[in-house]
């Protein structure tokens, strides 16, 4: 064996932290772009009482579904850029050939994405609930369902973003791939809030959302990593 002496084995934690820190720094430097989905979220929700009706009873029935649909669309808006710039400037290749498990590197990128989109969406949601006269019983379930659900949205979306990264114009295709996968999250997320308002149990819905998140954590980065290898290969 003439290969060079082994180097000290790589530290996965340091690499994970390096990727997370870089993506968060980049998000901070491009904060205009990052704010875009959030502003979209805010604008759509404020338009609803103006365009439909300011009647609190009507708004209250619309609120859970509307907030969830718009949260989903805002996530979709931000997905295309998840791997795009890394692909364009060659750093995606560097990520692929780093001596680290690609699963964790992708997970770090998705985590950074969730921290700058899903988490702010969740934090903004109660405020928008007020705009839509959401009944009091709905606030905690709304926050909890979004907290669990937006995580799944980012993870599932990463698969679509990875599949379309090598295409020059993947935007439309990305939406078509991702939308069907998002519907279960939407159904159970909005369902939890609706149940809470109607005075039913929210536990089962939240539990299913949690199960979806657990599944997405395991499968999402794995599928995205595979898709990235194929995308960069071509």
């Amino acid at each position, binding site marked *: 064996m003439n290969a*060079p002496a082994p180097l000290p084995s790589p530290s996965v934690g340091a690499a994970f932290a390096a990727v997370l820190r870089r993506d968060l720094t980049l998000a901070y430097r491009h904060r205009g772009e990052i704010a875009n989905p959030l502003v979209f979220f805010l604008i759509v929700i404020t338009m609803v009482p103006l365009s439909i009706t300011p009647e609190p009873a009507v708004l209250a029935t619309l609120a859970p579904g509307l907030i969830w649909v718009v949260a989903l669309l805002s996530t979709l808006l931000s997905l295309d850029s998840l791997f795009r710039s890394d692909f364009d400037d*060659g750093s995606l290749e560097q990520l692929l050939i780093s001596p680290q498990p690609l699963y964790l590197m992708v997970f770090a990128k998705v985590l950074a994405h969730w921290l700058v989109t899903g988490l702010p969406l969740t934090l903004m949601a109660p405020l928008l609930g007020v705009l839509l006269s959401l009944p009091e019983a709905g606030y905690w379930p709304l926050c909890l369902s979004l907290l669990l659900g937006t995580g799944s949205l980012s993870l599932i979306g990463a698969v679509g973003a990875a599949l379309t990264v090598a295409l020059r114009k993947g935007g439309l295709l990305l939406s078509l791939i991702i939308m069907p996968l998002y519907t279960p999250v939407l159904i159970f997320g909005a369902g939890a809030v609706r149940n809470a308002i109607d005075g039913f149990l929210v536990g089962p819905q939240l539990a299913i959302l949690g199960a979806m998140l657990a599944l997405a954590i395991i499968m999402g980065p794995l599928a995205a990593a595979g898709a990235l290898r194929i995308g960069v290969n071509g």
Partner: protein
Amino acid sequence: MTTPVIEARNLCCERDERILFYNLNLRVCAGDIVQIAGPNGSGKTTLLRILTTVSHDFSGRLYWGEDDLRRRRLDYLNHLLYLGHQPSVKKALSPRENLRWFSGLSSGHVQMPIEQALREVGLHGYEDVPCYALSAGQLRRVALARLYQTPARIWVLDEPFTAIDKQGVAALERLLLEHASGGGSVVLTTHQELGLAGVRRLDLLDFQADSDAMMAAAGDFS
């Protein structure tokens, strides 16, 4: 120095129904500097992407030492440094932040602090300037600073001299020689005449398929 560090046997690569190279054999030993030559579009970058395991669209075998490269991919990658066609530098980050990311990815083992590496490539005083304020040559130099930091023994460099000035080229050539004499290996592509002693040239035109071979390869791929 007889056992090769990387060996490629019978590499064939097809792109868009065109065969880029056929039956290519390559041995890179410790201390070798191998220049991949060939006109534009002859598959130089593709070959480097195959050697760095970025691309898998090929037939043939790759060996790392005596083992199949695919079996010990992680170990191989741990010894590999690849500078791609793009500098892989994020323009919104400073050179320091970019290098910190690179060293974090390659497990954080560096042989030289970031400040010193940047001084070596002539970017002293630019450590914390956002990279979009740098010129094309300076961006390339940020990527080249990794060569000073890395403990990797195998360097695969795609057009490392692009946009680099004369002094920079001379410094880089010195660095490559130093690396090779220390037992490292370099595989690079460049259109520049290298002023280095002991560079082996591999011309991709020698491995272009004639029509018979093309038919045979078409059979292999189908």
